[in-house]
């Protein structure tokens, strides 16, 4: 296992260098003045421009600039936001809210996804299966901002069951609707994965053995079928984290959840380029770390993974 952890972390190093380089390259190696370009249509304050130029060391050769920037990341320095607040300070304030939202969404999507997927898989071809497949196809086809607006309109405006925007402090009951929206797309994917996996596992010999030695389905379904069907779901959760990050940006923006995603959203719609770049960098780094953690967990879960080169 130690060798596996070591190998996995070693693999992550070129990816980490590559992604940070790419982001840096995208912004600062483009033709024209990158600082002015980041401000879009706005006329930047000359003092801010000068400060940014110094911050990004634009008088140095490109590769030197990149390494200075990389050094900053290692020291936890992601630069200043548009309003002059350190990005890390904003993160410290907003991250707990996003974590709460994301955990809530993860709970919803895994619980309902696995439950519906299991029932569907066990009743393959029946009405429940057909209708949940149809619903999942529709959910996958709906862009997340459409789901968010429809939910906001139906539950917030029309039925009045939930607040359309989250109140300050982001109490848990206000986060339920945004979390459901955030969970919806991944719910559909998890449901389908579980269903496919359950159908496959149900046909295997050990399930037949379990039934023929007289076990009730109350024991066979959770212990034999479900447990062996969950590995693809765990793998999916790693890639799903990217979906959650992008989804959180849009959902938090629409429901005005004071989280990391909303900060990025506000920076994007206000055209505050430097803040956008810092936050995207942070999100990509979080994404990388989570992927490594999930891979390690996966190696723990399935010994076969550890030995494959």
């Amino acid at each position, binding site marked *: 296992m130690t060798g596996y952890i070591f190998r996995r972390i070693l693999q992550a190093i070129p*990816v980490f260098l*590559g992604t940070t380089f790419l982001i840096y390259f995208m912004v600062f190696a483009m033709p*024209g003045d990158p600082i002015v370009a980041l401000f*879009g249509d706005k006329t930047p304050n000359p003092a801010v421009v000068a400060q940014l130029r110094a911050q990004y060391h634009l008088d140095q050769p490109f590769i030197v600039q990149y390494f200075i920037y990389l050094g900053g990341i290692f020291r936890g320095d992601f630069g200043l936001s548009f309003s002059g607040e350190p990005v890390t300070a904003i993160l410290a304030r907003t991250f707990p809210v996003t974590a709460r939202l994301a955990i809530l969404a993860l709970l919803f999507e895994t619980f309902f996804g696995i439950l519906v997927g299991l029932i569907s898989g066990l009743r393959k071809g029946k009405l429940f299966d057909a209708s949940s497949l149809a619903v999942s196809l529709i959910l996958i*086809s709906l*862009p997340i901002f459409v789901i968010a607006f429809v939910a906001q309109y139906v539950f917030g*405006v029309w039925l009045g069951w939930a607040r359309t925007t989250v109140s300050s402090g982001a109490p848990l009951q206000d986060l339920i609707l945004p979390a459901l929206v955030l969970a919806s797309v991944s719910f559909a994917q998890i449901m389908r994965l579980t269903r496919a996996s359950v159908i496959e596992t149900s046909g295997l010999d050990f399930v037949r053995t379990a039934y023929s030695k007289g076990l009730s389905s109350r024991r066979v379904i959770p212990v034999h079928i479900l447990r062996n069907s969950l590995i693809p779901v765990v793998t999916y959760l790693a890639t799903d984290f990217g979906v959650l990050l992008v989804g959180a940006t*849009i959902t938090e923006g629409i429901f005005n959840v004071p989280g990391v995603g909303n900060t990025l959203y506000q920076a994007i719609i206000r*055209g505050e380029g430097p803040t956008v770049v810092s936050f995207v960098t942070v999100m990509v780094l979080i994404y990388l770390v989570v992927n490594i953690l999930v891979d390690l967990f996966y190696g723990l879960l399935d010994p076969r993974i550890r030995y494959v080169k």
Partner: protein
Amino acid sequence: MSSNPTGGPTDATRGAAPSSTHYVAALDETPLVGVDTVKVAEKRSNLWIDAWQDVRGRPMFWISAALILVVALVALFPGLFTQTPPNNNCILGNSNGGPADGHPLGFTKQGCDIYSRIVHGTSTSLSVGFIVIVLTTTLGILFGSFAGFYGGWVDAVLSRVGDIFFSIPYILAAVVIMSVLSQYRSVWSISLAIGVFAWPSTARVLRSEILRVKNADFVMASTALGLSRFKILLKHVLPNSIAPVIVITTISLAAAIVAEASLSFLGVGLGSNIMSWGNDINQAQNDLRTAPQTLILPSIALSVTVFAFISLGEVVRDALDPKARALR
């Protein structure tokens, strides 16, 4: 049964019931039959013919194909569907107004005809979708086929490059690119921004398929016949590995349409002078309470288009992948 091509037993000998309990079969009872005999009368069959047979009988295929046909027609010939210009002729007095004579879906906040804007936005969405899949398929085939076929250090380098691009969620990457390219917002730049980061999934799918195919007997046969490695890849391995690429391309097209709409919705997508569903949704979001139709209608157009491509992709995947077929 008068003619007997295999030269086996005639009906007379086979049909004769043995009268004694110890029946000894005639020597010619079980003739040698070549197991590889080509049955000439059998219908020709390959993956594509099988897939077509399968797809043909599924209503979902016809529904999605019909939807795509309609969407394509609207995109190519918007003039056939509406005479109302989408941009000029907007009367502010009609702001957020309901349906009126000649304006079946009502008006946007600026008093423009919603129906006409939806019709004219179609080609934008489809153009972005198609440019993106041309990009992702080209890059994906280049990276995926070389990595999978040549293996070794070529695979190591190409796959790591793919990993790097894969590690940045492509909408976030496109947000950064479009923020930098704020002066050059067009269908081309947004497609580039999406496509440059969306290709690794195509490359990964193709790579794993090629890893499977490249050890097949026909590849060894081609090597034995003296075909060069590159020609084998081009003529034998690629055509036999392309099926999953077709599936992922269909789904990428839908994803690209969503990405464009999301970026335009965030305000870093297309310029406001370009007709786009995402832009219209962005414009309408503040009037959700008072005029939900201005937001819902372009959303429906967007979702139906995405639905059509995703369900087509799924039907095709089911047809091309026997394992997926078993799940139905």
